[in-house]
């Protein structure tokens, strides 16, 4: 199962890279994907979730993309504002927030999403806690911080990956 998913992913990426259906290239793709799969068979997918092909996941994922891009755009406008403002209005600090996600991949996606969205940058993940560098610490209450930073994505990612 794991091997098959890896192989499929590699082959699809190969087809996209070459962007042609010439039989020579497709055959080469089959061989090359086999090589890549052989070398990384236990890596790409660690523990498959219970229903890997459930369509609901993909619908959630499609929903996640625009949400993510919207926040990313906001993040950029925010940073642009701070950078271009003559006084550089920042109030940085590192805060600790808690997440409910369990799987590695979902934690990672959450952390990366946090890094790319307004004013926050993940410094480390330890257990259930994320250490986040926040360019403008708005509140000192940990619950409130968690709500602001994590909740935006946590629910969606939970549906997608767990």
């Amino acid at each position, binding site marked *: 199962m794991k091997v098959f998913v890896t192989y499929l992913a590699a082959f699809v990426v*190969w087809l996209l890279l070459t962007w042609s259906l010439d039989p020579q290239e497709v055959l080469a793709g089959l061989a090359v994907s086999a090589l890549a799969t052989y070398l990384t068979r236990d890596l790409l997918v660690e523990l498959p979730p219970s229903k890997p092909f459930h369509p609901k996941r993909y619908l959630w994922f499609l929903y996640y993309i625009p949400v993510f891009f919207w926040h990313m755009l906001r993040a950029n406008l925010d940073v642009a504002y701070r950078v271009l403002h003559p006084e550089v209005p920042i109030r940085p600090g590192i805060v600790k927030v808690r997440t409910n996600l369990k799987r590695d991949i979902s934690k990672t996606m959450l952390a*990366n999403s946090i890094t790319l969205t307004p004013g926050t940058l993940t410094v480390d993940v330890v257990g259930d806690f994320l250490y986040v560098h926040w360019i403008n610490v708005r509140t000192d209450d940990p619950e409130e911080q968690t709500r602001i930073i994590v909740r935006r994505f946590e629910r969606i990612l939970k549906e997608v990956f767990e």
Partner: protein
Amino acid sequence: MKGMSLIVRTIARVVTTFIILYSAYIVVYGHITPGGGFPGGVILALGIMLLMLAFGKDLPLRKLPEGRASVLDCLGALGFWAIALLGFTAGYFFLNFLGKGEPFRLVSAGTMPLSNIFIGIKVGVSLFAVLTALSVYRRFYPPGEEPPEED
């Protein structure tokens, strides 16, 4: 805990497959697009190096043990050498003796794709071997104490 933080490890898991795939792409398409055996091989070595950075030395060394790496290294070099010698038997050293095919197709240009593949294997494996040797090498043998014997 071995290796780097969870985020780096997870992303390394995801990306390594594609780095290796991409290295193979660069090697195989060497005569059509920029690239060729050499950069492809280096990318392959770097892909496995990423695993070492993210997970420590055990995982990549399990995938490519040092003994096998040295054999593969020699085999890659021998393959390229053999192409040269085959051309020699056909008339000239390094004669491009295979059929040339159509331009822009994957199977074209005679021996070039084959040479690229051999160089790719050779470069990738040997660079990985040297990266491992450099990284794993440690100096912690106090003057009085002798390190273990090896061949």
